[in-house]
């Protein structure tokens, strides 16, 4: 292992040498962010190689309007809110699902669990808070399909599902972006296929390298990016071979396409992203929570004072936010990036402070 690490570091040094200035690599996904911090990878990298945490934390990019709609639905006594764990702590305008002490909030691990809740409580409407990227959407689609087939009409979905590629495109389209290359998430790539990054590479000439979440895979992913920089090329690469194919999982994508369609939804801090969010197709609208509760659309809102948007686009590191570590901590989170276990602020807080003094 030591040899592989040393080789990787030599390649990173070579890239920094060639560029002369700083190299900014964005890890798109929150799972990468956590693994990078938990394994203490940052302090081992060359000083001029900078990692930026990207928008791939589902809770973080879910906008304030969505959170408020969710909190509002939770006020309905005949509703059960079925949600992934991290969402219960995200603060909205008035408290969070956790601090509001609601007995009708159930933490589930999957959309299937939510559907089971609906079967168990036929007198209640179960609203599944469907957030996540390409990895979780297929399961939501399957659940809607099941509900449709079995006629489980007391089940519906508040969809905040998002797509990775439109977000990467939006980031690069911002003239202020500092991103030189992307480290792409293994699990999402299993679904969308490495081919999917082709458009980013050809349009913006930024290397996109897929890596798994093990520390060695991350280090080798970074090294592959650096090799491309040294060669002066920008390609789709993968250090996750054997797991990620070029075409991805077409079956999963077909299921999603049957139930969902992309629209221009609002992302926290990033604004409206063309084709970046998924909603249920007209055919399945009766399973859409917005439709069910007569909510026209999710309002576009931002949380005042929280710099999550800038963190999510790699423009600042969390400690540059004035609230980091004083007003905003995991015990008293102000923004979702401090709530989610995959959020950049939470990762910086939990793992980041390294003592410089001792050798």
């Amino acid at each position, binding site marked *: 292992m030591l040899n592989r690490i040393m080789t990787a570091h030599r390649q990173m040094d070579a890239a920094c040498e060639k560029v002369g200035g700083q190299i900014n690599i964005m890890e798109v996904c929150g799972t990468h962010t956590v693994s990078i*911090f938990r394994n203490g990878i940052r302090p081992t990298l060359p000083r001029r190689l900078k990692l930026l945490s990207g928008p791939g934390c589902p809770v973080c990019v879910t906008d304030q309007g969505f959170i408020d709609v969710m909190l509002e639905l939770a006020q309905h006594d005949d509703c059960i809110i079925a949600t992934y764990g991290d969402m219960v702590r995200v603060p909205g305008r008035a408290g969070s699902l956790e601090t509001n002490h609601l007995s009708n909030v159930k933490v589930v691990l999957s959309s299937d669990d939510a559907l089971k809740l609906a079967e168990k409580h036929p007198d209640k409407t179960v609203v599944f808070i469907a957030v996540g990227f390409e990895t979780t959407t297929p399961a939501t689609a399957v659940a809607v399909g099941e509900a449709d087939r079995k006629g489980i009409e007391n089940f519906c979905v508040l969809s905040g599902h998002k797509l990775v590629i439109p977000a990467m495109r939006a980031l690069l389209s911002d003239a202020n972006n500092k991103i030189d290359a992307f480290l792409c998430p293994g699990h999402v790539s299993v679904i969308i296929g490495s081919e999917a990054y082709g458009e980013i590479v050809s349009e913006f000439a930024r290397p996109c390298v897929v890596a798994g979440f093990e520390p060695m895979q991350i280090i080798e992913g970074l090294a592959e990016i650096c090799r491309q920089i040294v060669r002066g090329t920008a390609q789709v690469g993968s250090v996750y071979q054997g797991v990620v194919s070029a075409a991805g999982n077409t079956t999963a994508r077909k299921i999603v396409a049957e139930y969902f369609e992309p629209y221009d939804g609002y992302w926290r801090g990033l604004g409206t992203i063309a084709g970046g969010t998924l909603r249920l197709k007209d055919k399945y609208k009766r399973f859409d929570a917005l439709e069910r509760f007569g909510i026209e659309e999710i309002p576009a809102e931002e949380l005042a004072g929280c710099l999550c948007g800038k963190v999510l686009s790699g423009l600042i590191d969390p400690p540059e936010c004035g609230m980091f570590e004083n007003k905003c901590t995991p015990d008293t989170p102000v923004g979702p990036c401090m709530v989610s276990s995959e959020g950049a602020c939470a990762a910086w807080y939990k793992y980041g402070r390294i003592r410089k003094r001792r050798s």
Partner: protein
Amino acid sequence: MVQIRQDTKAAVVNQREDKKILLAHGGGGRLTSNLISSLILPRFDNEVLGKLTDSAAIELSSSSVLFTTDSFVVKPLFFKGGDIGKLSVCGTVNDLAVAGAKPVALSLSLIIEEGFETALLERILDSAANTAAEAGVRIVTGDTKVVEKGSADGIFINTAGIGTRVAGAELSFDKITPGDCIIINGTIGDHGMAIMSKREGIEFELSIESDCACLADLTCKILESTPGVRFMRDPTRGGVAAVLNEIAEGRRCDIEINEKPVPVNPAVKAAADMLGFDLLDIANEGKVLIVASQDSAEAVLNICRNHPLGRQGQVIGRVAETAAEAPIVEMITAIGGKRIVRTPYGRDLPRIC
């Protein structure tokens, strides 16, 4: 006394017929005494409890007595490697053990939800009784209350325990000195991940078993044969991360942990990775972190490795002087990186994807 014993047989029959706990079982009347005489006394039979006096009288061999209590509200009640009965005995025995005591006697109080199945109660009591017998402690007093349906979740158990201090075992934060070694007796995170996998209904292909065990035999052996032990604590809720931070703050020292030697069960690691957990944050129920002087670390490790509860024991870090205002716990990771270790937030929520 004799009266109650005579009732036992008839009561057992009644219990079987009822199959469920009724409010009247906690009402202090005939059903209560039936419950005590048929379900409880035969399992925890010892002369102190058998006297059924309002208070238990115990002779202690030392005047340095340690006393502790803990309540158990675990869900699920039964999990791989244990159940709430075993846990309620181990938990209190371990609190005494890591404070440097040899556990002598426990109390055991049950708060049962009306309608709870008698068969489950019997399993829980069997398990508590076996665990106590194995650990060599007696359950000398107790209480049973039944609450209305919905007022509790199945069964809650409280245990309290007393023990006598092992001669010379004066453990405290103040004793900790920079240079001391930090030792753990085995793999981390097993209990928490066993509970979590059962609770979330995730059937991991590799089965994960709780490490739930009474540590007193191991800790007493260590304390009796090595003078250099400064401090011990069992990393239950909040895991190893919480205890290391308690030590750092309590003694105002830095701690440096080495990830490589930290013993981990691969199945537990896989489950934690899948759910996005850091194993340092996850609860253990049969582990002890021992801070020992450099000179005695080897001896402590030897005792561990020759004991069934310490075969995978390892030195995982050391104590260092702190220069900063806020002491920190730092970890050298397996790939040679560095990060800090913080006390976890306290509610373990699995990640989304």
